[in-house]
């Protein structure tokens, strides 16, 4: 991206309409960048020392904080009161880090990094900066996205839009090259991997699908090299101190980068020497790169595409500098990867371009998707998905539920995010109760639950009982203590366990449903036995006994069959009762009082 990187000196204001324009911020795990765009071309802003790539490290001093290169140096020296890699904790409400006797949240630390970035931008532009587009990993869940917004608020920044990192990269790349067609953005960073498939057409950037692995990055390759070296020297990783381990990993990383250019190299560690060849590093790296291609497979399948249909693959993230990564990606997609841009800056450029589009107007329009499915817990701890992953946003989906017990006046709404079938395997976003449902027989109440997902990927859930109009609504805020890495794990596990999950789910569902049917029928007979016709009670009782026997077994079909028989038997009685119930509910009386 030569010609794109034009750096401002502090105090310089080269853009027209600059007073209103928002900046773009790539708030990264290891480093951050702030940039501004003009006519779709973005430029990074430098700090006073001349750095555009700002390490995302904060050194909490007694008098003031420092952010960036100095703080990272302090971290490498093992000094205390230094915080790095805070992004991994975003959305984890239980996380606290001690610095200068203070207990800090991830939002506070990220807020301090953003304050620093804001200052860099203000000095470069010579004006106040209060609005920004901030990038987040595609796999950031709801809690982590909210935490990012909260951090921006702490730094006095109004977030115009959160955009996904691979999407931002596509935006910068697409605008610079005027590319059209379907592109893959392969984003392999130090700690995470993201793949997005986009359709670029006449200024529209349509995300078709996204997938990733938040526990897979270049750091894993460094660690693998380090353990090879230790093994060769007959040393044990467990004997290393934390500082030694950091140093060894940093050394392994340096050697890995050098081997991109040289054939073989020697690594010295604690008086020992180990010869490292290019082939050896590649052999160590292959399994990790293969895992990234597995995510590529999934993203392609979700987009309904095959590798051959991709027009080009844009490489993003420092780990894509490895020649082997380029080679394997080229083989997988059957085309030469596009790597003529700076993989460390392209995300911030995309954010800046979007910031310009949102504040100055532009032909560019971004159509993004939600990376994870959203749903509700239903009976038996099963998740009913309301919005599926890779659905375009904004989205609003309404679904009707009903009560499952006679006289039930409240309903628990448990909102979940993830791909697994059981609620315990997904992430809880919120839990609330809809109260004041008029007492009716099971199945008569109509509860309308709506999921609204805005263009930032943030969720609002509402529930309303349709007969009475009683409503409740929650805006989802950070709730549970999981790390965002768990999100990707949930997707992967969701795929791997899908089959056994489904079989188990079906059996559980069948049992729960049948058990519920029995208790419903028994309760109904107890409450409104007067509505039974002669002989009905005997036949129903016999069928209940048969069904109970089926529930005791593992044969789902049999349970379903016997439950259906019961339903058929009870049908006419239930209808008589339902009619009586609704007319009573509307006149304000309880059905069971009048029978």
């Amino acid at each position, binding site marked *: 991206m030569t010609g794109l990187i034009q750096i401002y000196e502090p105090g310089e204001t080269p853009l027209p309409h600059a007073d209103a324009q928002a900046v773009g911020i790539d708030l990264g795990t290891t480093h951050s960048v702030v940039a501004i765009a003009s006519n779709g071309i973005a430029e990074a802003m430098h700090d006073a020392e001349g750095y555009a790539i700002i390490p995302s490290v904060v050194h909490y001093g007694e008098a003031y904080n420092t952010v960036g290169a100095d703080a990272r140096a302090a971290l490498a020296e093992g000094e205390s009161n230094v915080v790095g890699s805070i992004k991994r904790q975003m959305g984890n409400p239980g996380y606290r880090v001690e610095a200068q006797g203070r207990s800090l949240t991830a939002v506070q630390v990220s807020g301090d990094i953003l304050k620093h970035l804001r200052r860099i931008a203000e000095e470069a532009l010579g004006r106040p900066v209060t609005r920004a587009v901030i990038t987040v990993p595609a796999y950031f869940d709801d809690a982590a996205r909210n935490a990012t917004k909260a951090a921006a608020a702490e730094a006095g920044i109004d977030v115009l*839009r959160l955009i996904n990192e691979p999407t931002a990269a596509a935006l910068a790349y697409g605008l610079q090259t005027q590319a059209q067609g379907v592109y893959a953005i392969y984003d392999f960073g130090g700690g995470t991997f993201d793949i997005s498939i986009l359709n670029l*057409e006449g200024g529209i950037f349509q995300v078709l699908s996204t997938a990733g692995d938040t526990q897979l990055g270049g750091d894993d390759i460094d660690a693998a090299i380090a353990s090879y070296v230790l093994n060769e020297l007959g040393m044990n990783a467990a004997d290393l101190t934390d500082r030694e381990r950091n140093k060894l990993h940093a050394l392994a990383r340096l050697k890995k980068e050098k081997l991109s250019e040289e054939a073989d190299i020697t690594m010295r560690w604690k008086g020992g020497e180990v010869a490292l060849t290019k082939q050896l590093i590649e052999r160590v790296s292959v399994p990790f790169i293969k895992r990234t291609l597995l995510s590529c497979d999934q993203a392609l399948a979700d987009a309904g595409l095959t590798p051959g249909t991709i027009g080009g693959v844009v490489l993003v993230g420092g780990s894509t500098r490895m020649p082997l990564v380029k080679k394997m990606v080229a083989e997988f997609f059957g085309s030469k990867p596009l790597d003529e841009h700076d993989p460390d800056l392209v995300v911030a450029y995309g954010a800046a371009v979007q910031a310009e589009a949102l504040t100055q107007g532009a032909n560019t329009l971004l159509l993004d998707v939600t990376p994870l499915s959203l749903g509700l817990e239903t009976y038996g701890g099963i998740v009913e998905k309301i919005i599926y992953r890779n659905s375009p946003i904004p989205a609003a989906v309404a679904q009707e539920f009903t009560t499952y017990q006679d006289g039930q006046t409240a309903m628990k709404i448990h909102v979940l995010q993830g791909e697994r079938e059981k609620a315990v395997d997904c992430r809880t976003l919120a839990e609330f109760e809809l109260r004041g449902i008029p007492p009716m027989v099971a199945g008569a109440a109509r509860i309308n639950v709506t999921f609204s997902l*805005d263009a930032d990927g943030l969720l609002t859930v509402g529930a309303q009982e349709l007969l009475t109009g009683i409503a409740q609504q929650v805006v989802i805020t950070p709730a549970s203590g999981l790390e965002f890495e768990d999100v990707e794990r949930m997707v992967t596990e969701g795929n791997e366990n899908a089959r056994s999950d489904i079989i188990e789910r079906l059996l559980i569902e069948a049992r729960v449903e049948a058990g519920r049917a029995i208790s419903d029928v028994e309760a109904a007979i107890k409450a409104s036995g007067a509505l039974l016709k002669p002989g009905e009670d005997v036949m129903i009782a016999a069928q209940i006994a048969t069904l109970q026997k089926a529930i005791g077994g593992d044969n789902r079909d049999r349970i379903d069959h016997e439950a259906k028989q019961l339903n058929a038997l009870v049908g006419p009685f239930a209808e008589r009762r339902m009619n009586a119930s609704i007319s009573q509910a509307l006149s304000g009386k309880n059905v069971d009082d009048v029978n």
Partner: protein
Amino acid sequence: MQNFFDILGLSPDFALDEKALEKAYFGAQRKTHPDLAIGKPEAERVEAFLKSQLVNEAYETLKNPLSRAEHMLALQNIFVNTEGQKNVAPVLLMEIMELRERLEEAALSGVQLNTVLSEMKVIATESKQTIANAFTFKNYKAAADETARFAYLIKAIEEAHMLIYRLKAAHA
């Protein structure tokens, strides 16, 4: 009942041209997307959200041939039950069971799985054509029956993809 063709300004047609649908969708989002309402009063932003999500729903529904068929039938007040196994024609039931058995056998060897998958895709394409023909002749009963069959085929194809993905994951 919302007519999703109307929302995108298209005439109802099962044999929808994908490029035409995409063009209509992009055009509609260029008018409604919430990004265009940033900085505007709350009422306008809410309206942008509501319209834009409806455009998304219309596009998603029409893009997928199965939901497109279901929607076109729903517009005729015909509701195809594609979930659960109620009232499945015995012939269809047999076909589905056979497919399932073949899938399960093929799951033991990855190569065969790919073969079964491509065969199923051929059958699904034919089924889609049958649905298109039925709609052309306004034979909604036939369209509904074939849509029910198509739903099972799509489900089986998804299952095959899942099995292939899991095999690859196990080897990675």
